[in-house]
């Protein structure tokens, strides 16, 4: 699960085309959205699409669950590690 974190960070930087940002600049426990990395609701949709493409994961339809999976790089890595299909 920890091994996935750098990969997830790179995917976020790549998908969001974050400028001047390196994987080591992202705190794996910081919130991805709003105050943390500053991603917004559109980023959440784009990141969801990218994660499904890359790992074949499917989020269930409970919006509260999804919010928790997207809380931080660490939470997202844990979810992907458990649910990846590829």
């Amino acid at each position: 699960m920890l091994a996935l974190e750098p990969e997830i960070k790179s995917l976020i930087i790549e998908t969001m085309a974050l400028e001047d940002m390196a994987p080591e600049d992202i705190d794996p426990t910081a919130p991805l959205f709003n105050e943390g990395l500053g991603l917004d609701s559109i980023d959440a949709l784009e990141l969801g699409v990218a994660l499904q493409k890359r790992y074949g994961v499917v989020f269930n339809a409970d919006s509260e669950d999804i919010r928790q999976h997207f809380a931080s790089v660490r939470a997202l890595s844990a979810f992907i590690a458990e649910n990846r299909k590829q």
Partner: protein
Amino acid sequence: MTEVLQQLCQRLSVQPQRIVAQRAGESLSAADFLARVRAWASALARMPGVSYALYLEDSFEFAAALFGGWHAGKNLWLPGDLLPATVSGLAHRVHGFAGELPPLGDLPRLSVADLKEVSDLEFSLDPLDADRCCLQLFTSGSSGDPVAIAKLLRQLQNEVNSLQQQFGAEVGEAVVHGTVSHQHIYGLLFRVLWPLASARCFAARRLAYPEEIAAISDPATLVASPAHLKRLPEGLDWAPFAGALGVCFSSGGPLPVEAAQAVLRLWRQAPIEVYGSTETGGIGWRQYGPGCGAWTALPTVDWQVDRGLLQVRSAHLADSHWYQTEDRAVAAAGGGFELLGRADRIYKLEERRISLSAIEQHLQSAPCLSDARVLVLPGARALIAAVVVPSAEGQQILARQDKKALVRTLREWLTGKVDPIALPRRWRALDVLPIDARGKVSQAALAALFRPMRPQPTWLLREAQTAELSLIVDPELAHFDGHFPGTPVLPGVAMLDWALHYAAGAFGIDSRCLQMDVLKFQQLVRPGAELRLRLDWEPQRGQLSFAFHCGEQRHASGRFRLNGQAS
């Protein structure tokens, strides 16, 4: 159904079993709705003052509060979001807050939790006066301050009549779901008022994620926007939803053709696009298909093009005068009109109206800047970019820290002042703004500052220690500037940057370079070339090998020793 909304509560009281809405599998009846309307009406009637700001996430509760407010004689203001600047901007316009708005000073406030105490089931719900019941919706004006647009119940009723006349038969009895908020006119009309007036059931909860859409399997109408339709994951099992979907609406901004095609492919429905604005209400519609493109006016809407700009006159407006929009338009050969974009500096970004002038003004007032310009960078996802000239204070930040620190300061400065979606994502700090021969800051020169430094990669192979990717060398890359005039050649150092950059992404490593070995540049790379980049990572030795080739031809290769620890 001409005057249904005025008499909604009377109509519902004679059919108490009618299902008005559903919330997470639970059906909410007309009797449930009337009880909530009475709760809101009796509570609001006791609150001081006339004008109340209303914000609620749940559409059923919102509808009850809206009608309750009207029955209590209140004029309701609907903020589009809960940004601190929006909330504080309401303070001098309203007498109090209702719903989920946070407390502000000593402004009277009525939350959902307060309602339990004061429910008055005897509160009399007489027919509403369509010319007195009013609400205020917000739009962002060119000065940046949100502009309040008043809507009488009569106008809203007319809108609903137009929608029913145009789309009613097609929509049928399906449950109305939506990805857009009812705090804006599109969601308000399509998700709440039209279903209420036409006795259709609506979903109380907004669909935030594609997974929630895919979970729908009962007959459905979807009120969506390009933000979601442009980003439908192909990997979801869409079959149940495609079978359930009757009509898909899209509004808020132009729907790209690729998105319309994806909707058609995944959901087997051609989306219906609706065009309008807060000021004008609904104007026209079109459905994706062969030869589409022109817009057809909605019922009661007249239009004309004057000096290139669209003008409209309709029952959706407050009076019968022509209203001048800021949309450039031209009459279409086969009837209807085509839209050619905005005439002002308002830009629609993910359906939100973004005022470039407003962002510029906020940046210009930042203590660490002496000047600033913003522009829109087009692309699959359009981005706001800022070119800034640091003041003495900004120069100190750059000197003591770095550009990241300056950008962080500016993002914090803008937070709460502009929609988060409009926070610039690209920044350039310059000593002076680029000026053209006429002494103006040229848009072209600003845009040139943001030309890409790297091509978009297509990953062919991505394993723990090996990766291969295909790169098309975009002639627009900044590297070709002056290298060389008339004979563009990719600088070798650009390939070194690409190898390190993509290796960091592929292997999740810190790709700071300690040493370079056996660098070879065998063939020139010209604009438009299709390169393969092969990367091999040996973690034990901290060694990264790279090779750029095109078919059999090798362009460049070499080895780096890296810092290498996982980042």
